[in-house]
């Protein structure tokens, strides 16, 4: 039993030790992953149906809020002045430079996820009496972010423009979000 450790034996032992640790680590990781991943959105949450909205009744200057994936989506039928102010804006001073054309499919309707990109509050500006901020679009009351007619961040702590969800026009006045 008291055989001396030859270098060869030592190599064998090192190999066995390293491979045991490695296999153990892989095994532990493959067990931990389900424990972590179970917290990600479940299949039924991911399968949440897309939302269809009829814009027929939405008059110029009016806004509606619809719910999509548990979040509010803002749809606004913009006035001519709002469209031109959004189009004419130079990109120089913008924090998250995007042209209005990149943000709309039809100039008349702007569709936005109504969640402030700062810390997730719902900005004001959908109702006629709401505070709309210094740029006339939306204003987040939580920490004071101002958005313009294109939903672009203009002032305040939010880092990016209001998100534009994936949507498509099924007809001239019917859109499908999601």
């Amino acid at each position: 039993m008291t055989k001396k450790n030859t270098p060869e034996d030592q190599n064998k032992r090192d190999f066995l030790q390293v491979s045991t640790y490695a296999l153990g680590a892989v095994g532990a990781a493959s067990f931990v992953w389900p424990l972590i991943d179970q917290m990600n959105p479940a299949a039924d949450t991911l399968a949440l149906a897309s939302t269809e909205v009829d814009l027929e009744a939405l008059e110029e200057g009016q806004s509606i809020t619809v719910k999509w994936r548990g979040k509010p989506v803002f749809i606004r039928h913009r006035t001519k002045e709002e469209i031109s102010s959004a189009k004419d804006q130079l990109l120089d001073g913008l924090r998250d430079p995007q042209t209005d054309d990149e943000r709309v499919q039809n100039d008349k309707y702007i569709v936005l996820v109504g969640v402030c990109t700062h810390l997730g509050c719902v900005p004001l500006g959908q109702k006629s009496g709401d505070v709309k901020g210094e740029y006339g679009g939306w204003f987040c009351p939580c920490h004071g972010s101002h958005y313009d007619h294109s939903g672009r961040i203009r002032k305040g702590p939010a880092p990016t423009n209001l998100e534009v969800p994936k949507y498509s026009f099924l007809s001239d006045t019917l859109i499908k979000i999601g």
Partner: protein
Amino acid sequence: MSKPKFKNPVVNWIDYRLPIFTFMNHELNEYPTPKNLNYFWNFGSLAGITLVTMIITGIVLSMNYTAHVDYAFDSVERIMRDVNHGWLLRYIHMNGASFFFIVVYIHIFRGLYYGSYKAPREILWILGVLILLLMMATAFMGYVLPWGQMSFWGATVITNLFSAIPLVGESIVTWLWGGFSVDNPTLNRFFSLHFVLPFVIVGVVILHLVALHRFGSNNPIGIDVKGKQDTVPFHPYYTIKDLFGLSVFTTIFAAAVFFFPNFMGHPDNYIPADPMVTPAHIVPEWYFLPFYAILRAIPDKLGGVLFMFGAIMVLFVLPWLDKSSVRSSQFRPLYKLFFWILVIDCIALGYLGAKPAEGIYVILSRIATAYYFFHFLIILPLLPRIESTRPLPVSISTPIITASSNASTVMAMREKK
């Protein structure tokens, strides 16, 4: 086996096999404690008792609570109206959270004032900061459970903090939510974690106590115990002192529970959560306000989050930032001054955190935030270079000016006997 320690033979029989009575006798009865502790040393035991109170009321509340977005708010209202003594249990739990933070914040500032974080108590201090972090996480998730407007939007804002992390931020937030907004999966996991974290806190508290009993309590003059003459047994001296403090504390606590139970809460949380409407003015619970003020003071999202967490992280390394070897403020005239400025600064941050983030409040928040970090990162390391500390007493039992004081001479003579 040595001669039996305890009179009761059953106790002796058990103790021989499981030395629990020896342990209790050692740590709770004869445990030598500095004889000069003042009432600020009550707050550790008060925090422990509050933790137990929270766990007991929490367990019985969970027996009547439903963690589902459609039922949570109503189940809390049912606890308030229909469950026997439910209103009392909930008000104790709800106010208990606030009182827990009051007690712990006093406990922390006690440690700051008397230098309790210095060698050899660094790990004791770090464990304490860890308990504070765990308490904050637990309190935050508990506040979400009633599923009122503040619950929902508080959860939304706080979980969104993680979206500031570059690259993986959005995925982490989705992972935390279990969906695309704060919703039923979020409520369920918060309930689960809110239930289990207090027991984790109990575990860390036990480590905190083990570390404490290694060298014993610090004391108001901050010098080491030199011998038996400097200490008294924990029982009956400090058991009685702690009990007296506890009776004062429970009187105030009971006054809050029975006469102004909603004083420290927010009325908007009695409105059921509505994911489509954010309340005009979101504020966290009062005990988070200083940190919230720091978050909003920084005009950059990631920066704000980093500074907010940094405000706690700086406490972890405090034992190495404060380079003075003198513990107690009693002998550090300059540190004492800066300590009180820090207290005012923290209260100011708390006040500013409750105010809307506009105009003068933003500027003041930035000044107060800058000062907070200035205190820990600049003042504390540099202070020992310019501060001349007062001479330390020889021991706890020997006052500095022995000759001129009759009373102390008498004390010294008594000790010789």
